[in-house]
């Protein structure tokens, strides 16, 4: 399923967080949205998933579920891993009667296998490491076979090896489910290892569009500053 965003605008109070942003992600593609903190990256994901209402513009998707993987996992801490992953199948009106308990157990096991975490169904989120919580949140997100997966800083706060593992799962999920993905990140390894396309945001506007290779080799001043992590350049730390 492709996603097309046209002239999107969102302001919080006086501050325009997203200012006339347009882009398209083709079916099965992985788009990385990069930029410094406070540039409006996560807000785009929240607008696409309807968690935040847009002020103007268009978001065109061709139906199907949109899954969201949160930065801090957002697992339901009073439920076990099994109940977290099976949550939508148990609670959603349209899915509640579709599957038997045996089928739900099979689906949960399959999704846990996909993220390499079989055998932890009865643990609570607080008993898992940060990386494991992220992977459980992947499994929860894909349980309804979504056509689009939105990742909000999936590798933030993880050690390099755990980050590599998460990046591999992003690719694996795309390859096995064919889902279109948008990854919000500011980690270069995540951009280079997962993305087909990159857009860079600054102050709510797109300042660079290209491939991960182009991001590293471009003359674009914004991209150069981002890649070299330089304090000098057109971008200044935005006061939150």
């Amino acid at each position, binding site marked *: 399923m492709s996603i097309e965003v046209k002239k999107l605008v969102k302001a919080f109070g006086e501050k325009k967080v997203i200012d006339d942003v347009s882009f398209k992600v083709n079916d099965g593609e992985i788009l990385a949205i990069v930029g410094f903190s406070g540039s409006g990256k996560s807000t785009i994901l929240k607008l696409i*998933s*309807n*968690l935040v209402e847009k002020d103007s513009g268009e978001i065109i998707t061709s139906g199907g579920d949109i899954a969201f993987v949160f930065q801090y996992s957002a*697992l339901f801490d009073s439920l076990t891993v099994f109940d977290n992953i099976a*949550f*939508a199948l148990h*609670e959603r009106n349209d899915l509640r009667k579709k599957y038997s308990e045996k089928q739900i157990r099979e689906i949960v096991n399959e999704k846990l296998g996909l993220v390499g975490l079989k055998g932890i169904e009865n643990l609570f989120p607080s008993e898992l490491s940060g990386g494991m919580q992220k992977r459980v949140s992947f499994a*929860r*997100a894909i349980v309804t076979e979504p056509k689009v997966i939105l990742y909000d800083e999936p590798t933030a706060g993880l050690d390099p090896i755990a980050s590599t593992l998460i990046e591999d799962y992003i690719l694996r999920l795309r390859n096995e489910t064919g889902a279109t993905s948008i990854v919000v990140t500011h980690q270069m390894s995540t951009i280079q290892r997962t993305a087909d396309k990159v857009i860079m945001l600054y102050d709510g506007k797109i300042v660079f569009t290209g491939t991960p290779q182009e991001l590293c080799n471009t003359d674009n001043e914004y991209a150069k500053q981002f890649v070299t992590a330089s304090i000098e350049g057109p971008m200044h730390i935005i006061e939150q």
Partner: protein
Amino acid sequence: MALVRNILKQTVTYKLFKSILVNLIDFMEVMGNITTCTIEFFKSLFKGELDRKELIVQCERFGISSLPITLSIVGMTSVIIVSQVAQEMVKQGGGNFVGALVAVLIVRELGVIMSGFAIISMIGSSLASELATMRVTEQIDALKTLKVNPFGYLFAPRVVAGMLMMPLVVIISSLFGILAGALTSDLAAGLSYRVYFESIWIGIFAKDLFVCLAKAVCFGAVIALISCTFGYYASGGAKGVGIATTRAVVWSFVAIVIIDMLFAIAFFF
């Protein structure tokens, strides 16, 4: 001009009006939030989104876990009143009315309002902090992205549990309060149980029982709804959870006293 404006801003009158305006805006915002949540709660009920499994969990929470504290509060209130009036009433020849007095006080007022206060401090505060924590840790956003209506999953079971269990809690705690009154009358004034219990029916009518139960249903709904609303709209991390919880408790206290007053005016004025 700027100097005059600065001087005016330092005056007590300016600060008073500013504070009134800020509180008024805040009041309107809270009322708007409560109204929105009430409408969404009813919509989720009509759509059949009430989670029955969660309803049972919440009924246990409202009914069973709150019972020790409600029984203690209503029971001790009864002991306090009877210790002070029973001896005097017996001396003045009114021993035949001690049971009636206690029953009227408890059934009409103390049983339900004291249980309400206990439920607010025990259950209301925990509902508000639970939902507020879910809000600040993005668990409520996660519910939405999984296409599960938070009003059906979070609000409906809690509010319905409040409406179902509050009358039960009030009945049990009121009975306990009346029994505690009987025991205290015996110990403090030597009043026999027979005299005490026979006099109960002098003061209690079917209308009192009906009003008591209707109030309990309203209190249960209002406490759950207000607590969930403050939790749902919380923001700002741990501090936000604390603020939401405190405000939920304060608003619930004020709300049930107002409802109690409206019932008193409507039925006993």
